[in-house]
């Protein structure tokens, strides 16, 4: 049963990953990418890593891919036009692919020569839940790495804000503090107007 589930999920993941690069419509590409993320989460569940699976869905499917989709939908780019000179990137692309393949082979070969048993959460030795197990090592053993990762993200966030924030003069903008802090005496003025005469 587990094997059937694995092969079905793995097949969907591979096919949809291929469809990401094969689809003509970029929006379809992103939708297939989302399907790939989702099936990857399913594979995590089969491994007994349900916490990671949920995080994958929350972070990648729920937030990152939404922004992808958002941007791709808003871009008005003629992708057929862009793909015209597509083949001229072949040498560079092939080089990257070769390097990746070589690295993959290296890692696989090293792992084969020294078989490291991968401990599965579903093996039964785990008395604690997923989330606890991760919490126990993340905030003790890997505290420094965790903090550094947070710092990198923080810097990236500030960078994004700095790049997009601009203050142009002459733009009408709402100042909430000024609005809320306004008093009646500043906003309303009562005038006694005589009939037949304007405000003068």
């Amino acid at each position, binding site marked *: *049963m587990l094997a059937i589930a694995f092969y079905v999920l793995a097949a969907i993941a591979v096919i949809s990953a291929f469809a990401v690069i094969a689809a003509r*419509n970029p*929006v*379809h590409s992103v*939708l297939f990418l*989302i399907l790939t993320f989702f099936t990857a989460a399913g594979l995590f569940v089969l491994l007994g890593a*349900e*916490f990671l699976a*949920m*995080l994958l*869905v*929350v972070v990648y*499917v*729920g*937030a990152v891919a*939404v*922004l992808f*989709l*958002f941007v791709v*939908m*808003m871009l008005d780019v003629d992708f057929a036009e862009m793909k015209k000179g597509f083949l001229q990137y072949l040498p560079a692309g092939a080089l990257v692919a070769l390097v990746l393949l070589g690295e993959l082979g290296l890692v696989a070969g090293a792992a084969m020569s020294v078989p490291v048993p991968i401990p599965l959460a579903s093996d039964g030795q785990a008395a*604690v*839940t*997923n*989330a*606890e197990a991760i919490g126990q090592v993340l905030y003790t053993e890997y505290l420094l790495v965790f903090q550094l990762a947070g710092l990198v993200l923080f810097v990236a966030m500030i960078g994004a804000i700095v790049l997009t924030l601009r203050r142009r003069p002459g733009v009408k903008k*709402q100042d*909430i503090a000024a609005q809320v802090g306004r008093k009646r005496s500043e906003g309303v003025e009562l005038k006694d107007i005589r009939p037949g005469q304007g405000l003068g």
Partner: protein
Amino acid sequence: MNPSADYVPFVAWPVEVEWALMKTGQVLIIMILLLLTLAFILLFDRKVWAAVQLRKGPNVVGPFGLFQSFADFLKFVLKEIVIPAGANKTVFLLAPLLTFVVAFIAWAVVPWGPGIVIADLNVGILYIFAISSLGVYGIIMGGWASNSKYPFLGGLRSAAQMVSYEVSIGFIIITVLLLVGSLNLTTIVESQAGGAWKWHAFRIFYIPEFPANILVGVTMIVMFVMFFISALAETNRPPFDLPEAESELVAGYQVEYSSTPYLLFMIGEYLNIVLMCAIMTILFLGGWHLPLGSIEALGLSPFWAGALAMLVFYVKIWAVFFMFAMVKAIVPRYRYDQLMRLGWKIFLPTSLVAVVAMGYYVAFLQPASAGVAP
């Protein structure tokens, strides 16, 4: 996932088959219950709205208009499905289906009573959070596939809005998780047993814990209110219904939808609202627990105790939905920049401070026995 070892099947077929049949039955019962709830909660919504505006509301079909939703349902199903000429057909039809399915599968982990739950996941609250974050795809896909300006604008608005408020919802959930010490929804409800003052929203009245109850109580009541407002934004309810603001965008992402696809969108939308009501009940209002005393103390048989627990939970969902309906009736719509400001500049910092406050409580003030053992 697997049937337990000491389980004896009724008939001589494999345990797996019977387990699968049993789960299918449970799913069907919950689905029918939810669809019936939706039929009447829709009517309730319109009736509350009408009462606030001194109207009668739907009152023609059946006594007090009770069968209005069923008449609407028939009308939706029997009408012709119109697909716009330039629409991306597959995505156009996939969008309402996705909204509908995603709205249902989140209910798999909702505990209706002690042990009355389809799948008692250890990461239950994360599962709900993950699934409800998928809901945005139905809207954004529908908006894009319609190949029309208003739906597209509605879809974009809703994508930005839902992603923004998910952040604060996530932090609010974390405060509750810190207090309880578990991601399991049943455990979260069980930790609020013993009376209304133990419910997270009313923790300030839990006097034995004085003075720590002030910190927890104030944080929790603020989190409850913020969760309520974020839930309004997350489900595109008024006053945050900008994705379908009829005065600006006709009807937002669902302009081009008709008949059954539109019905699926509407069911998904309302089901998400009811789900938010259920989550609020579980996280802050004590789930199936009675405000005074406990169901176990009544000495009922297990069947009736379970039924009473479900009834209590159900009544609480309706009570929270009443607040949703009242907000729709009495609060004017927000402007889009105000909405974004509220989400990012007010809710996000406040919920972050609340996470720190709850962390302080758990680390230094919480009695060692209080945290629920994993």
